[in-house]
C-alpha cells in the first residue's frame, strides 16, 4: 500500500510495504465487514410503529454470542497471530539482523543539522581521508552500508522515507543499523523526533549515485549543496 505513496528506495522497503499490504488486507476486510453489519442493523432495526424491540433471555443471548461474538473473537486472534508473525519477521530483518556491509557511515545529529562522515577512498572510517559533509550524504546504489547514529545534544531521528528507514538518535548512545540503496536519485532526509525550534528546518540531501558517478565524487568530494547545479 505504501508504494502508492512513496518510492521503494532500499532493499528492505519491499518487505515493509508487503507487511503494510498484509495488515491493510486483513484489517480492511474486518473494517468494511463490521461497518457494513453496523449500518445494516441501524437500517433494519430502526423504530417502526407497532414493532416492539426484542428481549433476549440468557439462552437466546448465549446462542447469538456463540455465533456472532466468540467466532469473530477466535478469527481475530488467529489473524493477529499472522500479523504478529509478519511484523516480527520484518522487524528482525530491518532492525536486528545486520548483514555483512561494504562500507560504514557515521551520522551525527545535532540541533538542527546532520553531519555525515563517509569512509572515503580507503573505505575505512576514522582515517584521514574521511569525507565529512554537513546535510549531505553520498551513497552508491547496490552497496550495503552500516550506519552508526549518534546525537550531540537532544533526541533526533534519522528518517529517510524513501528507504523506509527511521531510527532515533539518542545522546550518549551509538545506534547501528544498515541499509542498501536500490534506487538512484536525490532524496530527502528528515528529522522525525522533535528537537527544538529548528526541528522543521533541518532537512538533509541524500545523493544515491551509480558506481561511476560515485567514484567521480570520491575523487573531488566538493559539497554538492554549495554548487547550485542539481545532479
Amino acid at each position, binding site marked *: 500500500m505504501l508504494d502508492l505513496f512513496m518510492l521503494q528506495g532500499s532493499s528492505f522497503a519491499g518487505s515493509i510495504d508487503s507487511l503494510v499490504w498484509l495488515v491493510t488486507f486483513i484489517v480492511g476486510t474486518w473494517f468494511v465487514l463490521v461497518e457494513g453489519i453496523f449500518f445494516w442493523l441501524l437500517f433494519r432495526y430502526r423504530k417502526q410503529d407497532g414493532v416492539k424491540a426484542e428481549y433476549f433471555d440468557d439462552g437466546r443471548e448465549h446462542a447469538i454470542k456463540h455465533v456472532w461474538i466468540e467466532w469473530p473473537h477466535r478469527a481475530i486472534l488467529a489473524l493477529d497471530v499472522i500479523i504478529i508473525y509478519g*511484523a516480527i519477521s520484518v522487524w528482525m530483518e530491518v532492525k*536486528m539482523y545486520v548483514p555483512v556491509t561494504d562500507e560504514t557511515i557515521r551520522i551525527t545529529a545535532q540541533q538542527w543539522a546532520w553531519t555525515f562522515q563517509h569512509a572515503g577512498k580507503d573505505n575505512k572510517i576514522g582515517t584521514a581521508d574521511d569525507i565529512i559533509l554537513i546535510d549531505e550524504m553520498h551513497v552508491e546504489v547496490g552497496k550495503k552500508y552500516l550506519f552508526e547514529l549518534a546525537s550531540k545534544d537532544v533526541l533526533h531521528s534519522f528518517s529517510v522515507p524513501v528507504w523506509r528507514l527511521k531510527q532515533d538518535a539518542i545522546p550518549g548512545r551509538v545506534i547501528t543499523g544498515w541499509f542498501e540503496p536500490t534506487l538512484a536519485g536525490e532524496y530527502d532526509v528528515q528529522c522525525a523526533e522533535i528537537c527544538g525550534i529548528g526541528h522543521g528546518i533541518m532537512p538533509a540531501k541524500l545523493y544515491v549515485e551509480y558506481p561511476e558517478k560515485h567514484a567521480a565524487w570520491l575523487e573531488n568530494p566538493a559539497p554538492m549543496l554549495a554548487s547550485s547545479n542539481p545532479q
Partner: protein
Amino acid sequence: MAESPSHAHDGHAHAGHGAHDGHGGHHEESWFVHYFWSTDHKMIAKQYLVTGMLMGVIGAYFAYVFRMQLAFPGKPVPGYGLVTGADYNALVTNHGAIMIFWVAMPVLIAAFGNYLIPLMIGCDDMVFPRINRLSYQIFAISAVLVVASFFVQGGAFGGAWTAYPPLSAKAEYSLTPAGSSLWLIAVALEFVAFLLGGINFVTTAMNSRAPGMKAFDIPIAVWMIVIASILFMASVGPLIAGALMLLFDQMIGTGFFDPDRGGDPILWQHLFWFFGHPEVYVVLLPAMGFVAEIITTFSRKKMFAYKTVLATTFATGLLSFFVWAHHQFIAGIDPRMANVFSVTTVLISVPIAEMCFVYIATLYGGSITFSVPMLWALAFIAEFLLGGVTGIYLGSSGADIYFHDTYFVVAHFHYTFFPIAIIGSFAGMTYWYPKMFGTFMNEAWNKLHFWVTIIGFNGIFLPLFITGASGDHRRIFDYTNFPELDTPELQSLRVLATVSLLVMLVIQPVFLINFFYSMFRGKKAGANPWKANTLEWQAASPPPHGNFPTLPEVYRGPYEFSVPGRDEDYWPQNSPN
C-alpha cells in the same frame, strides 16, 4: 520556590477540623458558596464541565492557528499573526497536553463521574465532599498554570506533550526556561487533582451502592468510570516520580536524564509511556460507558452480554499495562523488547474488538430512535472502529518503522481521541442535559451541529492519513524545506484538512449557544424524558441537594427494556413491581 508537585496531604486521612460548623444546612448558601465553594457533587461536576469546555476552546484555537500555518506556510494567521518555529512547537505541544489533560479527562471522568456516580448508584453525594471540592480547586490552579505558561519569559514549552529530555530538561536546548517548568508543574498538579478525585470515585462506587444493588446491577457507565480511575491511579505514580526528577533536572541541575552524568533519557520515555498508554484507556472507558447507556436506551434493548462487556473491560485494562513501549519501537529501546511489546500491542486489539462487537450486537433486534444522543453514540462506534483498526499498523513493529512520528499516527490517534473526547462528551452532554438542567436542548440545532461536526472531522483526518503515508512528519511547521513533501498534491490535502477544520470550528458556537440558552429558555423536561431505567432518571431534574427524597432500593439490572408481558417497554431499577 516552585510548589512541590507531590501530594497535598491535608486531604489524606480526610482530616476534617471536626464538625465545628455544626449542622451547616445548604438552603441559605450565598451565591459564591453555591457556585464556587460547593461540596455538592453535581455543582463540582458542572465546574469541571465548564472548565473543560473553556480549555477545549483554547485547545481548538491552537489547532486552528497551527493548521492555518500548515495550509498557508509563512502567511500571518488571522487572529494570531506570524507563526515561527518556536510558536508552532508551543502550540502543538499545548494543543496535545490541553486536549488530553484539561479537556478529555475533566469532562469525561471528572464532570460525568462526579455527576453520575452518586446518582446512578443511588446515594446522596460522594463519600468525601470536601476532598472532591479540593480536587477541583487543584485542577483549576493547574489549568491557570498551563495557560500562564504562554505569558512567561521565553514563551510556552515546545517539546511535545511527551516532554522528552534532554530537550525538556535543559533550558539551553528548549529555550523556554520558565515555560518548561511551569508546564511540568501544571501537569503534576493535574495528576494530584485526579488522584484525589479518583480515590473519591472508587471509594464511593465500591462502598456506597444502594441496598439491593448487586455488582452486576451497576450501570456500565459507573463500572467504566471506576475502572478508568483505577487504571489512572495505578499508572500515574511512576510519571509523578518522573516529573519530580525532571523538575529537579530543570530547576536545580541534577542529572537524572543527562547521559553525560550517568542519567538516561530512555528512563523518562519508559516512565512517561508506562503512564501514557493506560492513560488513553483511562479516557476511552468512560466514553464507552456513556455509549453503552445511550444505545440501550434509544434502541429500547437490554445490553447484549453485560458480563462480556465487563470481562473485556478488565482484560483491556490489565493488558494496557503491558503495551507501552510500542511508542518507542524506534526510539532506541532494545530491538528484542520491541518484539515483546509488538505482540502485546497487537493482542490488545482482541478485547477491544470484542467490546465493540457486543455494542453492535446490542442494536440487533432493537427499535432504534435516532435522537441526537443516539446519533453521537452511533457516530462514536463508527468512527472509533477506524481509529482502532489503524492502530494495528502502528502496533506491528515492522510497519511502525515507517509510520512512527508521521501524520498517519496523528490521524490514527485523532480517530480514537476525537470520538472519545469530543463525540463521547457531546453524546453524554446531550443525553444527560435534561437531567442536569431540567430542560431540553433544541433538537434541530443539535442535529445540524452533529452532521457538520462529523463531516468536518472526517474531512480533517482522512486526508492526513494520506499525507502521513506519503512521508509527512509530525511537528514540522513548514514543509517547503522538504522537496519530497513540497508537492502540490500534498499541499492541497493539507489545505483540505485545514478547511474542514474551519468548517467544524464554525459550527461549534451553535452548540455552545444552544447549551447555555436552553438552560433558561429550553422546553421543560420531566424526571425521565428518555424513559430509561437507571437511578439518575428516577430523581427529579435537576436533582435537589441530596438527590433522592428517600434513597432508592434496587430490584433489578439497569437494562431491563422491552421485557415481554409488560405494557411499558422500560422497568426502572428501583420500582418494586
